[in-house]
């Protein structure tokens, strides 16, 4: 049962990492536009002819 000494802190750390990641994503505004984010994932990339103009 000594394995608990490793497993329990490990589980809590993983859970804590998840919580920190959630709070960070909330703070950086990733839940502000849920509808838009869904579409952005499948949107086409910028057309290539516009790319040189930006540099």
């Amino acid at each position, binding site marked *: 049962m000594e394995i608990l000494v490793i497993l329990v802190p490990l*589980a809590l750390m993983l859970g*804590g990492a998840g*919580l920190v990641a959630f709070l960070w994503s*909330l703070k950086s505004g990733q*839940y*502000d536009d849920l*509808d838009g984010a869904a*579409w952005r994932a499948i*949107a086409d990339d910028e057309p290539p002819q*516009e790319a040189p103009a930006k540099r």
Partner: protein
Amino acid sequence: MQVTRDFSHYVRDAGEGVQHIDLAVEGVHCAGCMAKIERGLSAIPDVTLARVNLTDRRVALEWKAGTLDPGRFIDRLEELGYKAYPFETESAEVAEVAESRFLLRCLGVAAFATMNVMMLSIPVWSGNVSDMLPEQRDFFHWLSALIALPAAAYAGQPFFRSAWRALSAKTTNMDVPISIGVILALGMSVVETIHHAEHAYFDAAIMLLTFLLVGRFLDQNMRRRTRAVAGNLAALKAETAAKFIGADEISQVPVAAIHPGDIVLLRPGERCAVDGTVIEGRSEIDQSLITGETLYVTAEQGTPVYAGSMNISGTLRVRVSAASEATLLAEITRLLDNALQARSRYMRLADRASRLYAPVVHATALLTILGWVVAGASWHDAIVTGVAVLIITCPCALGLAIPTVQTIASGAMFKSGVLLNSGDAIERLAEADHVIFDKTGTLTLPDLEVMNAADIPADIFELAGRLALSSHHPVAAAVAQAAGAKSPVVGAVEEAGQGVRATVDGVELRLGRPSFCGAETLVGRATVDPEASIVAFSKGNEKFVLSVRQGLRPDAQAVIAALKARNIGIEILSGDREPAVKAAAHALEIPEWRAGVTPADKIARIEELKQRGAKVLMVGDGMNDAPSLAAAHVSMSPISAAHLSQATADLVFLGRPLAPVVAAIDASRKALHLMRQNLWLAIGYNVLAVPVAISGVVTPLIAAAAMSGSSILVMLNSLRARSASREIV
């Protein structure tokens, strides 16, 4: 006079030489629009950020300071086919966004704690029936306490605060039993853990908080979304005023940038956006949005004008007494205050349920403790059983029963063009059994229409429309729109207060007052309609008369019939003249109507109906309707209504049809039915679970299973509200 557009009021400094503006955009609804707008705006040099928010229908723009004029973005969006206008976040919306983020953070913390405590609880449950050592069980309990206590202290804040507020005000709400249940469960679990006991309820307490936070968040999100849409609509009305920035120089500035004491120019055909006094000029103004009266009023030096009045004929200079609608007619303000006070006495279904629920539950827990002591159990065992009763009856499903239905029903209403201003509007609308309509702007459309277009030859009508384009007069604008005219007649001259004339191919065309066109003889036959404005059109010696008036909403008749079919009483209360109201009532087959009604009379009528036990739905748009909108059991306004009425109404509907009124009633009735059903489901669950808890055989495993089971059942039942409001009228 030079006219410029000035949006500097909306531009924010984003630091590092970058400026920021938020635009509300109309008609963005897919990924294609999003990409098109972002590319179109990024292509402008010096733009550093162009990002569309598809949920709120807004664009955030940033550019290098001093290089661009914000007006250029609006022009560019117009080229792309979108109407846009700068947007300023109201303080109410900022508060809702902050609250919504706080609830999400609480939910994140509670969900994290629930998952981890559950991970520790499951070995304990299975270990209790197998071979777990007591030391191991204590270790797991202590770990659970370590996670659950700080998490509950943070994530429980929304409930604890609200419960404290209620108790301070010597009332109770749903959050009082929730807070008591959570605190007792955690406290008892700590005591039990110290005494090496077999059962601890950390998992139940934190899971309860998680489920309730889901309900709270859904409720909050619904309100936030409504605020965002309402904010956009206000921005897209693009209310500006021509402000004098020099003796002879005017600038078109947003209303938000106008201050008392400024002088603005009001041209014919413009709607006044401020309250003020005329200091120069003479004109007729249409105050129907304020008083409901469709007859024009003469304005000259010293006449007060209110936001929402339409200037008809002459140009006026107005000294601003209050920007937007800070001051109002004193009478309306007084009536409104009284009515709002009366309305705050309504008690929500959830609060009514908890007022019955809390004493019953707490008495049951107390009786359980006393009962066990009388039956010979130790005080410790009796108290543990009593707390178990509190935990198992904690209103988890009850807390979800109403917010889930509200969220889903408001989504369904949103699709049929109805926005909710207040959370309990659904409950109150469902009870409505008598509808009072205002006439002007509610049963009729706010814009003017040409009534006898069919009687006039198409080519003549088109010519009249093209000529009308050269005039600022609202009636001319209505003629131009009805004729679908695009290109104005070349060389048209407007004679103020008379009409427009032009000469085409040697034939003189005139549009304006009948006397201006020499068509007085024709008018006698046309003026059967008391509400219509008569304009004449002459082409050489051919003369025609056009009758222009506010038309009824296209589906008004069908909606009235649908309301009658639902056994809802209908009447019209209007501030307009008797012949006009009579004509509308007759056309819609509404036997009960009153004309020339003052705001105080409207309230008196509503009170009279209330005395008889009727639940009144008031539908109105004018500023004169605002007090009665607040006095009625529930109220609705069209989106074209005066600001004040829109802010007072419980629901706001979009677009030209009146059908959303019926759709909203249907959706809310279905929602109320589901809310009641959910409450009964929650109570039914308690009736089954409480005897088990009283008997003292409840383990944490049973509590957790019962709690999640009932919550899921209630949520699934709420989803049925989605199918509501499909069939319109």
